[in-house]
């Protein structure tokens, strides 16, 4: 059993004896009970999508599925193709990739997840590094530590450009670390 707060996008969980894949997880501050987890999920038996919200300490059975390291290879509309070390190719539907689409990059390393012998999703590393391709310059004088701005990050698919909230001191072309569990900026990498 795993609490909701430890479950990641791409995990398969059992809910009422049915397998669901978690496609997206939005974490929000709640009252005194910690965080609220809003998940977009899909029933793997019926393909029916649904949204649910959970407390961080709600516990679920996580189905341990076969995983294999793969790299993102190319987009064969409407499927995304990943390749393992032996050059086997795995096609995954867009809707099963969930938030992973936000970070897709040519040659990106991740783990393909298999259910019933079929690759159904990918799991990303907890932390990934991406370059900022566009961000507005900081406004002078607005230096409070809590102020954030939008930054667009590199992505292999033009139509899937994704933005993250970053502190004002982060600039275009900077490399930043992102926590893929929360989709939040972690730190800037500068030599």
């Amino acid at each position, binding site marked *: 059993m795993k609490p909701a707060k430890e479950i990641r996008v791409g995990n398969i*969980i*059992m*809910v*009422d*004896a049915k397998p669901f894949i978690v496609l997206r997880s*939005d974490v*929000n*501050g*709640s*009252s*005194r*009970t*910690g965080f*609220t987890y*809003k998940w977009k999920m899909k029933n793997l038996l019926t393909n029916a999508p*649904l*949204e*649910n*919200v*959970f*407390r961080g300490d*709600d*516990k*679920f*059975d996580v189905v341990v599925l076969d995983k294999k390291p793969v790299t993102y290879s190319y987009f064969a509309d409407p499927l995304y193709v990943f390749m393992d070390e032996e050059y086997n190719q795995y096609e995954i539907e867009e809707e099963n990739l969930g938030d992973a689409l936000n970070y897709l990059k040519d040659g990106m390393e991740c783990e393909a997840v298999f259910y019933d012998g079929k690759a159904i999703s990918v799991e990303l590393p907890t932390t990934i590094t991406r370059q900022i391709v566009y961000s507005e310059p900081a406004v002078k004088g607005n230096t*409070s*530590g*809590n102020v954030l701005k939008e930054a667009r990050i590199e992505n292999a698919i033009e139509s899937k450009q994704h933005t993250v909230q970053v502190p004002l001191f982060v600039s275009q072309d900077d490399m930043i670390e992102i926590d893929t569990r929360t989709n939040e900026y972690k730190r800037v990498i500068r030599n």
Partner: protein
Amino acid sequence: MPLPSPPRLAIFCKVVDNFGDIGICWRLSRQLAREHGVVVTLWVDDLHSFQRICPQLDTAAPSQQVEGVFVRHWAGQEGVFTPADVADIVIEFFAVDIPPGYIDAMAGCDPKPVWLNLEGLTAEEWVEGCHRLPSMHPRLPLTKHFYFPGFTENTGGLLREGDLPERRRAFDRDASAAFLSGLGVTPAEQAALKVSLFCYQHAPVSALFDAWRDGAAQVACLVPEGVAAKAVEAFLGGPGAAGSAATRGALTVRVLPFVPQPDYDRLLWSCDINFVRGEDSFVRAQWAHKPFVWHIYPQDENLHHKKLRAFLGRYCPDIGSLADFSLRWNGAPDNNENASLAECWMALQGDMALLARRAVHWEKRMLENGDLAASLLDFARSLR
């Protein structure tokens, strides 16, 4: 199958914040029973805190009926329940863990009860996206729904009895003077700027007392017994028992007895500005037509600062003095961090007329969102 009429409803309340949790649950319970004819059972783990706001409660009774509400002492997680024990609507307040035996009994019901997690109040935008969403039980054939109070039409609204505005309007100047006199507030104190003070222990009360003491305006600070005890006792130079009072400079601090909920409303209506805390008194201040300052319940990782800013963004995006003072009062970093609390108070005091107008306008806006009890009941009916 529709809900029976009248429906039976159970609320599970765990007291963490002394008076806020039970304050909200008690108001909601009474309102559902009185205005909607619901048969309410309120399960509460701490009868002593409950008694402070409801003096007629018997703290030794495991089960009793008070003002039309069945009150049960929630003594622990043990207990065997059958489907017949389960209410038609079950509310876990602030995501408390309902006894496992009760949940098993819920799973055995046909039809299943409406199960709601009534969450805490926040002005953050994400709440609209989670309000009324389902939460499937991982193992049992049960679905809970999250229900959020809030400040917009896409949330459950705020808790408010139907006759509250009317009762406030009927409470005129004479009634206010009589009420304050009954609490021992002298005519001179009533002529001063009257402030009610309710906050958590970490509020910078001493600094505020200094500002009021050294200010030009006469201030009468009315504080319930036990609130801000250290600062109050330091000011009084002795124990802060109810009835104690002292005057230094322009400030008089008077300690009031801890009053039941209806009298707390009268206190809010009688004062010129109210310092409130948590959720229950915070909501009541919004129905009081008076300026107020919020001391928010502290949370890990300073999440409460985010919530405070979200509220200020909705309530007073154009009144910098209230935002500055509120952030300072809550220890939140702000853009005016070089100003002292005294300077922030001066600015706030200068905007008092503006704040009074905002309080009236805000109440009108909040009334348009409906009230929490009626909305919650409508939603429960929609699920069956």
